[in-house]
């Protein structure tokens, strides 16, 4: 277990260093920072002085090491577009994205798992067929088209829900939350539905497939032979064994949600990190792009590591293998 943990963390650190290298290369080879810092008619001597001051005369690996050290402290310099520290730009946008992603993730689990169980237990029912068909259509629709349709129906035609922004937000410390006001909650509905649809269908199909697989297995037959009630078999025995792969996929998809939040934030003009990133991409604003890349990768890598560890904790078979030496 300890060995596994160490190996896994070392691997994560390497991935992060690789990502930092890409971010560093973006800084180093896209545009010359000296040009943007000195006046147009600066002499060569003046330019060289700035170059030395920025540490650009050092060998590349020294520059890279400095970059990593500064990045680890959250320092990515100033945004090229609006000359503010990138870290504070990201920090003020982070709560919006985090709340959106968390609500969408929660929704996809809360709806996807029950639907998956339902369709697995009654494979021939009309409702199952209908759900399967709807989920197929749902997966085929590009997410931004789904979002536009939601806005068209619920905002333009019915006028029930807002189509942009976060509503009224309340500041709790540095965190601005939309959970505490009615407009904030209403504003969350459409974006989180749009963001969760793909994940929801995925989880539903996965739970269904796993559940049907488990229900055929010997230990379920044995449980039936013991005369246990359907309820106990379905929820106590079958569901528990179904949820292990669901956790893995869900963890991996959580990263996907953060990436797809970029699209959702654009459709609903949600003031999150994704919208900031899109602006940075269209303006070629390297510090913001690099910082976003590093931050999102950090979240990905952390989630992946946690999922791998959870896997070991939850599945006793893996645990036995991992601790064989200890016995």
């Amino acid at each position, binding site marked *: 277990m300890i060995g596994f943990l160490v190996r896994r963390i070392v691997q994560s650190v390497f991935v992060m260093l690789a990502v930092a290298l890409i971010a560093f290369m973006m800084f180093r080879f896209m*545009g010359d920072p000296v040009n943007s810092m000195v006046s147009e008619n600066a002499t060569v001597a003046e330019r060289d002085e700035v170059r030395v001051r920025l540490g650009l005369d050092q060998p590349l690996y020294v520059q890279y090491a400095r970059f990593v050290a500064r990045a680890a402290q959250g320092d990515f310099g100033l945004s090229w577009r609006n000359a503010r520290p990138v870290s504070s730009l990201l920090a003020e946008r982070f709560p919006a994205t985090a709340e959106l992603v968390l609500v969408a993730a929660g929704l996809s689990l809360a709806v996807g798992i029950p639907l998956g169980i339902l369709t697995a237990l009654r494979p021939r029912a009309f409702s199952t067929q209908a759900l399967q068909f709807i989920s197929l259509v749902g997966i085929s629709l*590009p997410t931004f088209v789904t979002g536009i349709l939601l806005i068209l129906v619920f905002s333009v035609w019915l006028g029930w829900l807002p189509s942009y922004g976060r509503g009224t937000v309340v500041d709790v410390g540095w965190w601005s939350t939309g959970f505490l006001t009615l407009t904030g909650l209403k504003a969350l509905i459409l974006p989180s539905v749009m963001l969760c649809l793909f994940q929801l269908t995925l989880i539903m199909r996965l739970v269904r497939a796993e559940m049907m697989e488990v229900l055929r297995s010997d230990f379920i037959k044995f449980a039936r032979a013991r005369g246990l009630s359907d309820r106990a078999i379905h929820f106590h025995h079958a569901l528990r064994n179904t949820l292990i792969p669901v956790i893995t996929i869900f963890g991996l998809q959580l990263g996907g949600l953060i990436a797809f939040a970029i699209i959702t934030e654009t459709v609903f003009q949600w003031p999150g990190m994704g919208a900031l990133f899109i602006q940075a991409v*269209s303006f070629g604003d390297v510090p913001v792009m690099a910082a976003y890349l590093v931050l999102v990768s950090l979240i990905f890598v952390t989630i992946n590591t946690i999922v791998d560890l959870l896997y070991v904790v939850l599945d006793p078979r893996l645990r036995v293998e991992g601790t064989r030496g200890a016995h």
Partner: protein
Amino acid sequence: MATSVLSRALSGDVAWSFRHSWSARLSALALVILFAAAIFAPLLANQNPYDIGQLNLFDSELPPAWVDGGDARYWLGTDTQARDVYSSILYGLRLSLIVGFASVALAAVVGISLGLLGGFVGGFVDAAIMRFADVLLSFPTILVALLVNGIVRGALPPAQHQQAAIWVLILAIGLTNWVQYARIVRSSTMVERGKEYVQAARINGVSRTGIMVQHILPNVLGPVLVIATINLGMAVLTEATLSFLGVGMPATQPSLGTLIRIGNEFLFSGIWWVVIFPSVVLVALVLAVNLLGDWLRDALNPKLR
């Protein structure tokens, strides 16, 4: 052996499977229509939406022909700049497909080359390529595509962004999707590498490049066809998403995604037709490609026969 893909594609089994799969036939029909519409766009369109001289502002914001106030000349209506929605869709479809095919080709060339190299040479080269592929694969496609897009944009002077947009897109999508090709080509190359015909070629003094390109390559191309088909759907979708996000094709040269973005801006004026029709075409295109890809995968998979 080089003809195995072709002969299998024409053999009775696959043709039989095609005749008996209504989804395959329907999506093939849809694709033929969409491809024809894209190729013959200038002949089928009522106007050239890129030519400002052909636009008449008095005709702006007309609804589809069958709705009250519609005009028979513009049967899918017009947008706020009096562009005929039907004509813009034809031209947009054309751009979407060009970007789609070109980026699939780029991804295939990069992926096949790296897969062949890794599988044949092995060792450090192979490990480096595959590690990189793993890292790339652990990030969502759209994020990588956005990042490549941003890097290329940052490297270009702003004045060239519009002209270079199509190349930036092809590069961004192509460089994002090569991993699958590389993986599958690598694994078949590793199998082929040990076979007798490769040894024979070696003994005959054929160079390593020669063996890779002339002898192994034709034998590992089979599964690539299936991946390429499924990838086309992905590529079209990624292009549409990037254009929708405003970092793809510019409004002066709209692809389907750009059209949807433009339509989205006027959604609240009640002008629904500008956004709905391009979306329908996009969904139909992606769905048809995906269904055909699914069918092709099953039909060419001997285990499922």
